[in-house]
């Protein structure tokens, strides 16, 4: 490649009063901006076009959300909290609430949402008068004009696929990782089945306890339902569940 600028400059500086060319350059732009208009966008009156994937405040599609808490777990500023909300059928469900005063607009919530219920939105005018107003509840997070372009798809290629000569296959980050049970640690407390947001875990009877005569319960994970949200892993009191990463 070639050097473009260094060999043209510096010029001869003997003309130490050389002010004509900059003045002429400025005058040219003056004529241009008088005839047309300056490049400035008059912000409050006109707004620049933003693409769909613009990372403004997070948006939430209430019906799609399963309340898994992945957004709250991945939020780097810990501004997302799961709160109780009433859904359309009158049931109380867990839904995220975003404290916009702390939100860094990083888009992680939308990126890591396993069901693409969290989206990014192009809305960036979120100033309020009080801090309380900056709390966006689950219903307020709704953005009416959500388009498919606002979803952030997290598609990865497995290193094993690349090694196998199949590099074009992309999978969602949550498709293959599944929790795995260490049978000896499990006490059958059913906690995992309770916290699973998509009811992928069912407690199955695996024989009876010889001493007490009670049935031994073990979780069974429905791989087609699981979204790899790690709630069961986090809530397991005996660390019996662990995510098995497929690479």
């Amino acid at each position: 490649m070639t050097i473009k600028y260094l060999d043209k400059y510096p010029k001869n500086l003997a003309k130490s009063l050389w002010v004509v060319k900059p003045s002429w350059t400025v005058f040219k732009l003056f004529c241009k901006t008088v005839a047309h208009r300056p490049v400035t966008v008059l912000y409050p009156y006109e707004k620049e076009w933003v693409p769909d994937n613009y990372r403004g405040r997070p948006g939430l599609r209430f019906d799609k959300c399963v309340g898994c808490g992945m957004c709250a777990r991945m939020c780097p500023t810990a501004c997302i909290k799961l709160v109780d909300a009433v859904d359309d059928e009158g049931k109380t469900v867990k839904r995220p609430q975003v404290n916009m005063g702390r939100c860094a607009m990083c888009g992680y919530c939308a990126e890591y949402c396993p069901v693409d219920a969290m989206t990014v939105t192009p809305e960036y005018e979120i100033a309020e008068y009080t801090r309380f107003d900056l709390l966006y509840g689950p219903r307020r997070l709704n953005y009416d004009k959500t388009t498919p372009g606002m979803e952030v798809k997290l598609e990865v290629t497995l290193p094993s696929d690349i090694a196998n000569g199949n590099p074009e296959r992309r999978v969602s980050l949550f498709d293959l990782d599944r929790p795995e049970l260490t049978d000896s640690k499990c006490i059958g407390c059913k906690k995992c089945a309770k916290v699973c947001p998509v009811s992928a875990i069912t407690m199955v009877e695996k024989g009876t306890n010889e001493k007490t005569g009670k049935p031994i319960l073990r979780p069974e994970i429905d791989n087609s339902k699981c979204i790899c949200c790690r709630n069961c892993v986090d809530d397991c009191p005996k660390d019996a569940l662990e995510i098995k990463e497929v690479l």
Partner: protein
Amino acid sequence: MDLVVEYNSLLNFINFGELGLMDNAYYPFDTYNLPYAICYRLWEVLGGTIAWLLNLLFPDNGVSRWLIGEGASTLFALILFMLVMFIVVFVCTLISLWMERKCLGRMMDRRGTMVGMKGFLQCVADGLKTFMKENTLPGKIDRMTYMWTVSLVIGVSVLVACMVPLSARWYVVDYDTGLLIIMAFFALAPFFILVSGWAQNNKYALIGGMRAAELMISYEVPMLIMIATTALLAGSFNIGDIVYAQNDTVWFFIPQIIGFITFFFCATAESERLPFDIAEAEAELVEGWQTEYAGMKWGLIMLADYFRGYVACAMVTIMYLGGWTLPFIGDGPIPEIVFLLKTWFVFFLMILIRAALARVRPDQILNIGWKVFMPLSVINLAVVLLLKVGGVF
């Protein structure tokens, strides 16, 4: 004089000069003066009304008679005259301020001010804003000096701006050394800036004040040489004579093109505008000598800067661009407007220079002043002498 009066009687649609004004025993000017004539007529209406009302209350009293007498009329007309002169200059300065903001904005690819009347009302908004700010004084300052220096800087600037004549009929004083007097008042401000820098108990202000003095010793001498050159060419220091000398021959920027360019830069330095605003260099000295002035004082200092810029442009216009005359037309019906348009054109050039150039260093301004401007002004003087000796002028 006769010529001017005749001219006005022909072309002036508001004929104030024909009504025996100049026969007044107390008439303060030598020649016809339009703003004074307006003020005199204004006072005749105002004072006459007051006198009539007083006369209704106290028939045949002395005050009424005094009010419509020649002496009192002249006195009150002069007071009105001062007001009119100031307001006209003030409005002209505000227009140049607006022009700078707008043009500079366009040159930088932005909009400039946008508050009302294409941005003109921003000046008013700024004035109101600075006016309403609290008048804070920093501690440990020399309070007396702090106040009187800034008053004098502003006062001298306003005074010199009001002294610039707009035409042969629009002036305050018509001295034979008018140009010199204006330059003398013009050069006063840097002294006050120097003292003000000392008084503020602030290191930035101190350096700024020193730099103002440094700036002045670099451009003042070439500038005076060029004024002398112009006076030599015109044969007089009288502003009217200089302008009409250009009207009789050619505009002086043609024979003294070197002088025109050099004087233009000197005038930029004199008004402390951007390539030479080392006294208030905001990059290194926060606001230079104005650092500790807040509120209305700062607003007035800013305004005074524009007064000085206006005067500098007016000097260039008078000395090189034919003042209020136009080629082949001479005075024209409204010479004041011609003069102001020319002044604003020169101001536009200053804006262009400001947008295109950076600030020079204090040692560079000394170099430029003594090694570039000084020889150029002497060369200019030599050219003019040759022309004069050769009989061209």
